[in-house]
């Protein structure tokens, strides 16, 4: 357990959340989420003694989150010719402000929760909550369907923070299974994005409103 390195990594994660909410190009956001996933993969090495299975998981995470998922999403963006602009429903500055508030709220909530002494020295629980909320914020504040996928990936990264904190209770197979499920989900979403973009104009989620009461 190495609190200062863990905190450094987690601060990077928070900054990347902020960066994605402030960026106005879709490919930049996809790349930033990939970098966030790769940075988080290092987290496991600071929690406990490294074993062979950790190294194996590390390689799989880097491959899936760092290469396969961003490759798929960037390919969809280009194939479907989705416009690069994020088209926010809530402006960039207000979203960043809301995100800052949610970070504040996460720290407040985490201070009220019972935590182990070992986890109190790190900012792992508040950063987990903040990342979950940033993902949701991105989903609700941007118009295009592809940014919703990016938000989903941010949320998944948040869950990864939590699962790396719980050493011993989540087995290697479970970690890989979750990762593969996310990959399968993103793959199907990518196919759907392609169909959305060809049927509707430029992958616009706001147009998905004909089914209503």
């Amino acid at each position, binding site marked *: 357990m190495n609190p200062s390195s863990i905190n450094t990594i987690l601060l990077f994660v928070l900054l990347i959340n902020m960066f994605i909410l402030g960026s106005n190009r879709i490919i930049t956001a996809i790349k930033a989420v990939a970098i966030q996933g790769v940075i988080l993969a290092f987290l496991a090495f600071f929690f406990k003694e490294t074993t062979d299975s950790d190294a194996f998981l590390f390689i799989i995470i880097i491959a899936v989150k760092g290469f396969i998922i961003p490759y798929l999403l960037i390919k969809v963006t280009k194939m479907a010719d989705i416009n690069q602009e994020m088209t926010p429903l809530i402006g960039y500055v207000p979203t960043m402000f809301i995100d800052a508030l949610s970070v504040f709220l996460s720290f407040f909530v985490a201070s009220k*929760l*019972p*935590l*182990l002494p070992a986890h109190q020295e790190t900012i792992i629980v508040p950063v987990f909550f903040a990342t*979950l909320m940033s993902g*949701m914020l991105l*989903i609700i504040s941007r118009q295009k*369907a592809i940014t*919703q996928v990016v938000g*989903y990936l941010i*949320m*998944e990264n*948040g*869950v990864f923070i*939590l*699962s790396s*904190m*719980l050493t*011993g*209770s*989540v*087995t290697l*197979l*479970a970690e890989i*299974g*979750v990762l593969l*499920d996310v990959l*399968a*989900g993103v793959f*199907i*979403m990518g196919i*759907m994005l392609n*169909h*959305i973009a060809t*049927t*509707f104009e430029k992958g616009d*989620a706001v147009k*998905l*409103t*004909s*089914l209503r*009461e």
Partner: protein
Amino acid sequence: MTVAFLCTVCVATVLGVIFITKENKTRAYAIFALALGHLLLTLCLLNLNIVHIDALSKFILIIISTLYLGITFHGISYFSICQSQNNNKYVALSLVIFLVFATLMIVADELISMWIFLETASLACAPLIYYNKNKASIEATWKYLFLCSIGIILALVGMLFISYSAIMAGASDTSLSFENILANGKSFNSTWLKISFVFIFIGFATKTGLFPLHSWKADAYGEEPGIFGALMAGGMTSLSWLALIRLMQIMNASKESALMQNVLVFFGVASMLFASIGMLNQSDIKRVLAYSSIEHMGIISLGFGVGGVGIFGALFHIFNNALLKGAIFIAVGNIKRAFGEKTLYFVSGAIGKIPISGTILFITFLAIVGTPPFGSFFSIFSILKGTLNYSNGLLFFMIMGLIFAFIGISKTILSATRGKPKDIQTGYKDTLGMYLVPLVLLLITLFVGINMPNIMQNLLNEASLLIKG
């Protein structure tokens, strides 16, 4: 080991057939063969002690196996008569994936592996919703994919919190196997358990389609073909109820059941009332059925919430709901083919136009609203009795919900089935293959209503004892 090996060989053969053949009909036969194999596997698992599964898993396994067999049998005529042009390779693949992962999810004995299998099974449903490939089905699929993915991520967070509550309590074994949690849950940290309950409940309630989290349901059920609607409204919901039942078991074992009961009762009543209001102003038959599904999820949730005899009723209602929703979605699919549309503007007098499917639709509607002597009457009645023991005020809300829902669904189904048929020629005729399955499913619920077999009674009693803890 031998069983696992045999299953793998069967699934691989079916997948091979699906990929190699160019005929829609051959694929439909292959899935039907798989369903027969699954029935055999279910019988093995029930009688021989190969894998240790409890009464709840057995119960849900029977439901899934029966319903899947019916749907794939209907699929033979569906794919060869109605959809002979539309390539069904990916749909057949999804159906196989759904069955494999649903079975794995039912026998899973650990929380996270259960989550993984449920998520895969529900991802496999996305191509089914997308089957018609038009604007509306894209929208419905996207809504389904997205809401369920986000919901289920929250469920995963909740599961990890259970593990943290074990760590906080200083437990030596922090793995998430049911055995461990049910045995040691009493000593877990209660704050984290409550937080985890909220997260897991939101996650799986999205999948079940309880009131505030239901918005994908009407679109998905409304846009997909009736045969797949039957699989989702009957099968998928039973799977997510199994996940919620596991959560209930955990909360009961760790003495946190008060919070859980209140939440279940609240969401149950809210779903019933909301869904019955939603039904009133609908002209699309399939959307009305989707709201009826939300309402029945509410009834089941209420049954589990009030406890006592309500739990027995709720479990029994999961069974009835699965079979009746399977029957009615397939019947409505037939009606839609006969009229070419599924809104009341085009559909009326179905009994006159296609007598057998129309009559089946009408009788299934009677069974769904809880007419004796169908099984659904007895399950709803048990839940009413449980509610009466719980509180009188709640009983009022439940009866209001039932009455409103009756008005809502009968308005649509009566005007669809009775009256003078519109003069629309689509060339569709009822054949045995098209109406046999809903008829059989209906007869099964009638049979369990009149004379429930002892085996089923024992299984239900055993299962409700497991939930009470």
